[in-house]
Each structure stands twice: as structure tokens, then as C-alpha cells.
């Protein structure tokens, strides 16, 4: 497997989780999410990935959207977590902690002396 392919597969799942976290913190709009995620190089997304992903989360009822005027610019389409989205986020958070804990142990000890 090529490195870039591995990276993109790992990122895809994590990205979805991070987006839920960001939206869970407060309602956010697409441009804001792209700019926010740009701060972390491994999480930087293109618009071509983000918007379709948002659309899918919307369809699966994990997030909901509403249009709102902004003072400075054009109307923005904000996204909000639904109850089932928040539930999913919590489940992902628990899973993520377990995974990262396990990976860290393996990285550190290579499977030896785990007590």
C-alpha cells in the first residue's frame, strides 16, 4: 500500500470525527471549517472533500443546517449537531481514546511487558 493511500484512509475517518467535534463546539459554516482545519497540516481538507462530506452527514441526520445572514459578507450556511450526531460524536470519542491508547502502548513497548 502506498503511503499516501494509507494516509488518506486514516484521515477520512478521523476527519469526520474532528468535524463533528468542531460543529459540536458551536455552529460553524463551511468556509470556517476549511480555514480551521487548515491549521493542522494532517487535517487540511479541500473543499471538494469537505462539502460532500457535510452533505452526507446532513443526509444521515447527524448534523442539521440553517442559513443565516452575516454582517460583513454573504449569507452563511451553518451546521449544527443533532442529538444523534452528538451521540455519534461521543461514541467516536470513546473509540478514539481506546484506539490511540492501544496504538501508543504498541508504539512504546512493541507488545512487550504490558502490565
Amino acid at each position, binding site marked *: 500500500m502506498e503511503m499516501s493511500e494509507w494516509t488518506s484512509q486514516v484521515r477520512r475517518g478521523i476527519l469526520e470525527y474532528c468535524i463533528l467535534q468542531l460543529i459540536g463546539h458551536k455552529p460553524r459554516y*463551511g*468556509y470556517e471549517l476549511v480555514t480551521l482545519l487548515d491549521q493542522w497540516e494532517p487535517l487540511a481538507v479541500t473543499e471538494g472533500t469537505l*462539502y*460532500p462530506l457535510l*452533505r452526507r452527514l446532513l*443526509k444521515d441526520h447527524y448534523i442539521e443546517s440553517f442559513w443565516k445572514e452575516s454582517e460583513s*459578507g454573504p*449569507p*452563511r450556511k451553518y*451546521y449544527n449537531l443533532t442529538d444523534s450526531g452528538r451521540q455519534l460524536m461521543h461514541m467516536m470519542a470513546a473509540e478514539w481514546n481506546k484506539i490511540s491508547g492501544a496504538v501508543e502502548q504498541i508504539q512504546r513497548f512493541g507488545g512487550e511487558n504490558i502490565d
Partner: protein
Amino acid sequence: MISRYGKEYLEKLNRYLEKLPDDERMDAVMEIESHIAEGIANGVPEAVILSRLGDPRKLAKAYRSERLNGLKGMKSLKDVFAVIGFYCTAGLLSVMIVPVLATVAYGFGFCAVLIVIAGILRTFGAAWINMSIGPGMEIATEYSMIYALVVGGIVGGIAIASWLGLKKYLAFLSERYRRVLPGKQAVHG
């Protein structure tokens, strides 16, 4: 302000998204429009924003493929039965309608062309081509072309009607498919 290039981009995106239901398509295009305007308001050159968005065709494709992924979310038994029902009725109907209409459209279309060619040939003396209205009522050579055009027109008309019918039927199918598709009905928050 979004320039002509930005507007062209949005128009293209709109066109490539034509397979999406109208409300979803408009919402997607509006969102990208808002994205471009937001970037401009933040001082990013429009050309940079557009190039980041990438080829509108690819963006549209990404929307569509995420939409297909959503199909996996068939949760309730009712959804599954709705889809099975769709395939059963549409499948059976299509087995009869599609081949018949397609054959008639192409077969009759081909014949119409042949008839007109025969008319031309007969006008210029190909006496071996037989044209008659009934037994013993041979068409005079000089009327060959008129006869060919009338008969060819009728046959061609049938071909066109079948072709249009086929197109209508296929459009009807995809419309129905869309309605059966689970998860389609609730898009907006």
C-alpha cells in the same frame, strides 16, 4: 463581488449537479457561492478560491458519490422492501417496454431512410424497385419521390415516437427511483 469567472464556475457546477434533486442542487450551489463570496470578503483572490475548489465536474462528482454512500444507510425493513418493490415492478416493465421501444425506434428509423433512398433510386430509373398502393396499382415513376416521402415520413414518425416514448419512460424510471431512494426525503435542517 463575485466576478464573471466565479459565476461561470457556479453555472458549470449547477449543470454537473443536474442529477441531484432540485432542492439539493440549489442548496449546494448556493453554499459554494457563499464560500466564494466569503473568501473574497476575507481578501483571498477569487482565482485562488476557484482553484482550491477545483474542477467543477470533479466537485459535482464528489457530491454524487457521497450521495451514493448514503445509500448504505438503508436501515429499516420498510426501506429495503420499497427498493425491492421498485426493482421488481420496474424490472418487469422494463424487460418488455425497453426492448420493444428501442427495436421499433431503430428498426423503423432505418426503414424510413431506406424508403427515401429507394424513392430517389426509382425516380432515376431503378425500375426493379416495386412501389404500389395495392395489387395492380403501381406508382408512376415520377411520383416515386412523393410516395417515398409520405411512407418514409409515416415510418420515421413511428420511429421518433418510439424514441421519445423510450426517453420519457427512462426519465420516469429515474424519477421514481429517486423517490423510492431512502434518506432522500429529509435533506434540510
